[in-house]
């Protein structure tokens, strides 16, 4: 079925967009919100848009949020569209999360561990009571307390397990060029590099729900949070004109390493397995969901029965991108007049045939 162009509606569309602009501005007796305020005070929203827009730029994400009236999926869509207008210069060196300037680092599996449990700016342990003091505005901001930073190293928690050989190695550290979804369309079976890229920009709600489904028994693998890290890492790249790596700036990342059960196999002794989550900005829910689903999708590789939705690589990767999903769902709003006309004709013909057949049957029965 070809699409048929229909003309008309320009005036209505212009008026609708005018109204949208006025609705976006809201009550004019109130000050207009600035993108710098959004970037600075709605940081978690900005982080989500950067992750799902798959483009790290807090100022652009803040602009997209303002333009989309806070609709974060629409904002991610705007950011994805913008990135297609820019040339790709290079790729970075893989970021070194070991060298992160940590604002938060926790482990749910070891109480006392080198580097300690650092809570950072967390909502955990808050009472989830609305704080009406925030509605009053002009809050005094008290300076943060400082403590002497310890010079202690903060080793990766999985490295502690690895010392005893109790966890699988995190895979061969190949230097092969990883697959890139922005260059090559998704193809199955998808390898872990492409799966991780897809999950890192996947919809947070989808990752959360699928991760939750594994905990509820649909592909359970007994996860523990080995470690969560939030902080700043340097981004390095090797410009061809220089031939050596240089730092180009710093980005905020959240990393989650899940430690999961594994019973072993004929060739492998029993050992823990890994699920990995890494994302732009501060978003533990996203990183944890990603790590749970990453581990679930490794079912087949680890010799488990892949029966649950989260273990179905093709199902997960085909549906985790909310830009694609919203495009296909929301396109249903666009005119389908011709499509529907043919459906109408078909159903009228079918009904006419059915009615005629019924009438014929009734007539036969009456005669009998």
């Amino acid at each position: 079925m070809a699409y048929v162009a229909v003309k008309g509606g320009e005036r209505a569309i212009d008026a609708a967009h005018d109204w949208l602009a006025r609705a976006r501005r809201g009550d004019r007796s109130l000050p207009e919100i600035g993108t710098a305020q959004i970037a600075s005070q709605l940081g978690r929203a900005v982080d989500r848009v950067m992750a799902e827009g798959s483009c790290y730029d807090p100022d652009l994400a803040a602009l997209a949020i303002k333009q989309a009236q806070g609709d974060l999926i629409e904002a991610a869509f705007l950011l994805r569209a913008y990135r297609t207008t820019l040339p790709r210069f290079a790729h970075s060196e893989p970021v070194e999360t070991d060298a992160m300037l940590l604002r938060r680092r926790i482990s749910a599996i070891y109480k006392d561990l080198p580097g300690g449990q650092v809570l950072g700016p967390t909502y955990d342990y808050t009472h989830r009571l609305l704080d009406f003091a925030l509605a009053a505005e002009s809050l005094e901001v008290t300076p943060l307390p400082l403590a002497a930073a310890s010079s202690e190293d903060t080793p990766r928690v999985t490295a502690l397990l690895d010392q005893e050989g109790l966890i699988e190695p995190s895979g061969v550290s190949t230097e092969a060029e990883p697959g890139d979804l922005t260059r090559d369309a998704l193809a199955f079976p998808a390898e872990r590099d492409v799966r991780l890229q897809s999950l890192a920009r996947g919809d947070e709600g989808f990752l959360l729900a699928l991760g939750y489904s594994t905990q509820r028994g649909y592909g359970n693998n007994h996860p523990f949070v080995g470690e969560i890290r939030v902080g700043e890492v340097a981004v390095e790249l090797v410009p061809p004109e220089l031939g050596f790596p240089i730092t180009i700036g710093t980005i905020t990342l959240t990393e989650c390493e899940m430690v999961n059960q594994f019973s072993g196999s004929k060739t492998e002794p029993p050992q823990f397995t890994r699920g990995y989550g890494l994302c732009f900005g501060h978003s533990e829910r996203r990183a944890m969901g990603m790590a749970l689903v990453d581990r679930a999708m490794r079912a087949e590789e680890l010799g488990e029965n892949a029966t649950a939705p989260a273990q179905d690589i093709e199902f997960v990767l085909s549906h985790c991108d909310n830009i694609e999903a919203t495009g296909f769902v929301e396109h249903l709003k666009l005119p389908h007049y011709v499509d529907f006309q043919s459906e109408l004709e078909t159903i009228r013909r079918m009904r006419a045939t059915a009615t005629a057949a019924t009438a014929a049957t009734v007539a036969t029965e009456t005669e009998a």
Partner: protein
Amino acid sequence: MLGSQAIEARQGWLAVLANAPLAGIEDCIARAAPLPAHTRLRGPEIGLIMVQGRAGGDGAPFNLGEMTVTRCTVRNAQGQIGHAYLAGRDPRRAELVAALDAALQHPTESAEWARTVVAPLAEAQKEARRKVAGEAAATRVDFFTLATMRS
């Protein structure tokens, strides 16, 4: 070809300049000798780089997502060529950093540029990192064991 010491020095100042805000760079330049005149060889231009991570933090690389970058290359009146690759979209900052990278390669004036521009910016960054580490340390959990009531 640069020796490893020269490469390390250049990596050092480029990292400091990459993490410095425009206002900070301009302040330092205002207090230093005037920058040699330069011509643009490329850019400043805005583009993207693909940021890579590693599975498990130390396994095989994967593409995490892109980030915006501004790059610029200049040649200054003294003949040095400077490069800048900076996170974000700021053509003015990229051009200044490229001009500074060129000036910092001057055989005799390099030390002076390092002292007047790079050192104060590096100190400010060190202080900022120290502050974050201190704030984080204040949220580090001190576990204690409750004394039992049994005699």
